[in-house]
């Protein structure tokens, strides 16, 4: 079947495009922009934590209310407007159709709508900074009573209540969910229905599997929160009492609805990044992925377990200790499938001919850092320890050690790996390595010492310890300062990446041989030309084997593309 490319106007090609690659780029670029916003907020309140009350360069004086709003929005933005678009929508849109060997998503128009709804949701969130009263500041989990009944932006009038920071944040999150739901339906239908001939279930690359499992987890856990967000909005705008205990409502209900989604969300973010690792590690070890099928089963097990552990976020919310035991056990159990997946990555590295190219460095950095995040997660999963550490910087540090490698290392690994495919150009690898080492070093500098601050009792929502000087004695205040300096350097080192990105994009296109399959990878996306035209493949590929055929003993080349017939 011949696919012809055709001329399109600028608007239909780059703005209101239905091409999965352009939509994937739009999501990724939007994610990078929002990461800039989230990073800037982090810079402001980190500066304030190290030097309370000082005037902050590029911002000025930070009031306690602003501190709360910035911490809240930093969390919101980094999870829902950076992690989700970059890992799930960005990677999913860019790679699913290419990796399964088809021309586009099953519903291209729905896909386009999905991005534009997401875009509007980002605008709504950013607008909340500029309404009277400022952005919502009750924590990214939006627990009532802060988020209900206009506690923080009290207003008796319908319209002022609707355009308060609280309501706008709820609206923005709800819109974002709609966008992601539309994207998720697309991913699953595309993967089930549009695979190339011969692409059987167990020949699909792990990344595509994981993106689909993540989409399914998202779709089946977010529903109750959509209903809950609707109720919360009514509590704010109309004055109902769904979450108001004085009126028969129940604030704990929100915690359940939120975390029934919020905890699976962690795995929604983690699985795509692990999928990226599963693509990169075999390529740079020149070995087949160890235990392909068990990895898929483990991911499915983790998907089931992920909806059974949510109340471990509520150990101090007065839940029954017997229930707490159940959720502790569930939480510790869920480490088993992920330990299995990491073990298989280790086994893939074992005895391989490892080449430390830039994508591989990010992948291994991911494993090293996530290990720390995962192991501290085991401590916190146990309710006895969690009650002590709850809401301290120990928890904050724990989830930054999971989410930062997950979102940023996973994303950068993917960017350095697939950049040649989607642009026809290559990134500078020396700058890439510098970017990696700076990010790796300054990330640890920012966070590692804060484990000790957390164990010492530093609370995550206090902006100034002047009145609690007993908690913040030396060396803890010094740790804060080290952390802040490293955080600023961490943010600055991302400019290495941006510089690399823009200078590489400005260069002329490389010869096809250099960018067609630079890493000698066997999956289908490398069969298409770089960058792939609208419609992706000149001829629909046929698939003859699994995705990870490297270093076969009886083959001339050390890899066999999925689309090559015969041995």
């Amino acid at each position, binding site marked *: 079947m011949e696919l012809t490319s055709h001329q399109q106007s600028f608007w239909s090609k780059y703005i209101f495009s239905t091409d999965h690659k352009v939509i994937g780029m739009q999501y990724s670029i939007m994610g990078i922009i929002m990461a800039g916003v989230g990073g800037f907020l982090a810079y402001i309140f980190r500066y304030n934590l190290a030097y309370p009350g000082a005037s902050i360069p590029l911002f000025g004086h930070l009031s306690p209310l602003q501190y709360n709003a910035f911490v809240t929005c930093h969390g919101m933005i980094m999870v829902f407007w950076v992690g989700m678009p970059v890992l799930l929508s960005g990677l999913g849109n860019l790679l699913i159709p290419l990796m399964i060997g088809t021309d586009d998503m099953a519903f291209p128009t729905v896909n386009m709508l999905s991005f534009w709804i997401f875009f509007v949701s980002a605008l709504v969130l950013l607008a909340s900074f500029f309404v009277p009263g400022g952005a919502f500041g009750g924590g990214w989990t939006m627990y009532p009573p802060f988020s209900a009944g206009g506690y923080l932006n009290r207003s008796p009038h319908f319209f002022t209540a609707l355009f308060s920071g609280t309501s706008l944040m709820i609206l923005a999150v709800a819109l974002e969910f709609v966008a992601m*739901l539309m994207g998720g339906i697309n991913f699953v*239908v595309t993967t089930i*229905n549009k695979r190339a*001939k011969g692409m*059987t279930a167990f020949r699909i690359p792990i990344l595509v599997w994981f993106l689909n499992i993540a989409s399914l987890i998202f779709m089946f856990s977010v529903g109750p929160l959509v209903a*809950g967000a609707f*109720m919360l909005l009514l509590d704010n705008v109309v004055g109902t009492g769904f979450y108001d205990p004085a009126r028969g409502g129940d604030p704990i209900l929100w915690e359940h*609805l939120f975390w029934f989604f919020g905890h699976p969300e962690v795995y929604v973010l983690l699985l795509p990044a692990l999928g990226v690792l599963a693509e990169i590690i075999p390529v740079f070890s020149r070995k*087949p992925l160890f235990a392909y099928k068990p990895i898929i089963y483990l991911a499915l097990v983790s998907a089931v377990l992920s909806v059974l552990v949510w109340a471990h976020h509520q150990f101090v919310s007065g839940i029954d200790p017997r229930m707490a035991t159940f959720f502790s056990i569930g939480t510790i159990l869920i480490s088993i499938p992920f330990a299995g997946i990491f073990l298989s990555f280790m086994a893939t590295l074992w005895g391989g001919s490892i080449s430390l190219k830039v994508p591989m460095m990010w992948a291994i950095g991911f494993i090293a850092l996530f290990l720390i995040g995962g192991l501290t997660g085991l401590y916190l999963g146990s309710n006895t320890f969690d009650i002590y550490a709850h809401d301290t910087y120990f928890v904050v540090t724990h989830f930054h050690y999971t989410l930062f490698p997950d979102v940023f290392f996973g994303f950068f690994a993917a960017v350095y790996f697939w950049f040649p495919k989607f642009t026809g150009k290559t990134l500078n690898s020396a700058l890439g390595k510098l970017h990696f080492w700076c990010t790796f070093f300054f990330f640890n500098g920012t966070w590692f010492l804060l484990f000790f601050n957390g164990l010492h009792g530093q609370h995550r929502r206090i902006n100034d310890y002047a009145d609690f000087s007993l908690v913040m004695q030396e060396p803890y205040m010094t740790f804060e300062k080290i952390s802040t300096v490293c955080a600023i350097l961490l943010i600055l080192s991302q400019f290495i990446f941006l510089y690399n990105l823009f200078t590489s994009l400005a260069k002329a296109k490389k010869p096809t041989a250099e960018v067609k399959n630079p890493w000698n990878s066997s999956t289908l996306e490398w069969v298409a030309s770089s960058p792939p035209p609208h419609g992706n493949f000149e001829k629909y590929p046929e698939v003859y084997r699994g995705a990870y055929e490297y270093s076969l003993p009886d083959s001339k080349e050390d890899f066999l593309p999925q689309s090559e017939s015969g*041995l």
Partner: protein
Amino acid sequence: MSTKQPHLSLEVNKVPEGRLGVWILIAGELVIFGGLIASYLLSRLRYPQWSEMTVHTSTLIGAINTVVLLCSSYTIVRAHEAAQKLDVAKVTRWMSLTVLGGLIFLIDKSIEYTREISEGFTFTSPQLQHSGNYVDSLFWSYYYIMTGLHSLHVLVGMIVMIIIMVQIKKGKNLHRVELAGMYWHMVDLIWIFLFPLLYIAK
């Protein structure tokens, strides 16, 4: 190592894309209503006095609406049947009847809402709150959010069906009749849950 299997064709047993998409959409919708219904049930079990509030909902209008929705599910099935025979005139007739069913449902619902609002039962029920019956006012919050969200789905279903009828007139997208039917059955199914919960269980 590599298995030399013959080409496994995936064309067999393939569910059409649209149908697959709507199935997933329906699953997502059911979880949304599931969360709402579960929240309601938890409160309902905690507050037995809510049975005195369900007295104020009109079981008669609710029952009529149940029949109307069930009938409209029948008409959309007939529309689907006609679509399979490529009989556009019949499809339009049966689909119009389905839209009419939705319209009757919404008219009934608005009569019902008018009655309840005039009795002082609203989203926040200020009268109940003034007399200290906060818990009872919460019942009405749940009542309005559940039936309101459901009515919104009825409205969306009607709009979608009108759009599909226009498309069919132009001679395209006949397969979407089935998709509208699936969605409409879901709307019907959710009502089958809401009706006993909010009207019958005293």
